[in-house]
């Protein structure tokens, strides 16, 4: 797999470490979250067959976190964004 890094261009996936679904960006608010919220956040996954938004860490490169949209049935990557940009966009 080749991941098209927004800053560095096409990079081999073996330079990256995979964390999991991009829902991990949506951490519950510690002030209001219930144990159920934490259980769902930490342990439950959608695990779709098809497009999947997920977090990859460029460990062998610039150490940036990326949100990669990848089809889990074909491994085709359709979108790559810096996780930082995704998080900032959401805060607006």
């Amino acid at each position, binding site marked *: 797999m080749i991941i098209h890094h927004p800053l560095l261009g096409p990079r081999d996936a*073996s330079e990256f470490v995979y964390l*999991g679904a991009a829902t991990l960006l949506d951490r519950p608010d510690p002030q209001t979250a219930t144990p159920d919220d934490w259980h769902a956040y930490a342990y439950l*996954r959608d695990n*779709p067959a098809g497009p999947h938004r997920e977090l990859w860490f460029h460990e062998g490169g610039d150490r940036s976190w990326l949100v990669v949209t990848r089809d*889990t049935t*074909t491994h085709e990557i359709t979108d790559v964004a810096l996780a930082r940009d995704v998080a900032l966009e959401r805060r607006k």
Partner: protein
Amino acid sequence: MRYSGFRIIKEALTGHRGWGPAWREPEPKAHYDIIVIGGGGHGLATAHYLASVYQQKSVAVLEKGWIGGGNVGRNTTIIRSNYLLDGNEPFYEFSLKLWEGLEQDLNYNAMVSQRGIINLIHSDAQRDAFTRRGNAMILNGADAELLDEAAVRREYPYLNFRDARFPIKGGLAQRRGGTVRHDAVAWGFARAADSRGVDIIQNCEVTGFRIQDGTCTGVETSRGFIGATKVGCAVAGSSGRLMAHADMRLPIESHVLQAFVSEGLKPILPGVITFGAGHFYVSQSDKGGLVFGGDIDGYNSYAQRGNLPVVEDVCEGGMAIMPMIGRARLLRMWGGIMDMSMDGSPIIDRTHIDGLYFNGGWCYGGFKATPASGYTFAHLLATDTPHHVATAYRFDRFRTGHMIDEKGVGNQPNLH
């Protein structure tokens, strides 16, 4: 028809015209007491034990493709019960005992071969960990034997004992471990279940559950609606896809694991060798091919094929431990889809929907568990109580903190 040596002689003398199909191809009925979704090893084993041990008369197995076409035919065929934790070891030892009597139970030659498995030791810390694991195995009624370097050398003189990074210092052996002909496991369970009246319905994909007032009353399939009092799901690898039809999110990610077979070689490997430090495990099939595998690719996938970096990594692991295989050529490689759970251990439990039961999350240890998984899931389906060796495999263990995490790596499925 009962298979026997006498039967073979009789058929040989009569031109082999008496062998019939090993199971029927029935049309689905309108309603069953119990429907098992998934005609792989675990689903067929569940059906077999439902019919034989729990005396269920109205059971169907629904399979979207053909039976044995999924993970039961895509693994590295190893059986063992060398686990550490109390939630796991009694279950896997129960499974190994079922393997030992399986062929007589099924009247089918599954080529169960207890050729022994050795986990290699490379350091003092690993020896301590394996000693503890061996003791846990013995306490749970399994067999374990700690080998020093000379003992491993006697059995496998060609391993790379003097490697600079991972010198071999010994091994933890389980003599009762070994390999099984994996396709024959699916066929044997299917034939035995069918002979007791279980309907095995192939090319019948479940497309939804009919759930009314919190109770599952049947399944929508590509061959129409089929009613059921109880529905058991045993589709590890595709659990996320199937349970999404019931609006369930699972503590599971689907990952791809690759496996490999070399060209046929003369007999060289008498048992199973695992090289945990580099994550490489290998045995030799009766046809002579080296059957081996390594780590999962590490990202969510339903593709049944992996990528080249892991191929390189696995082959490097093989070369590190057995440099003599460098000239052997790969014959085949393939990928299978694993339910990687959040603690590396499986789930056999009721769901929050009445009449809907779940069996999955087998990570890459599903094959060895096949008979016990079927037995304990049948117990749960028939009696509504967990079998005593499977009480820890609950859905709510993640909520209550009772994880069964052999490696202690936490909720990171690609590290289990």
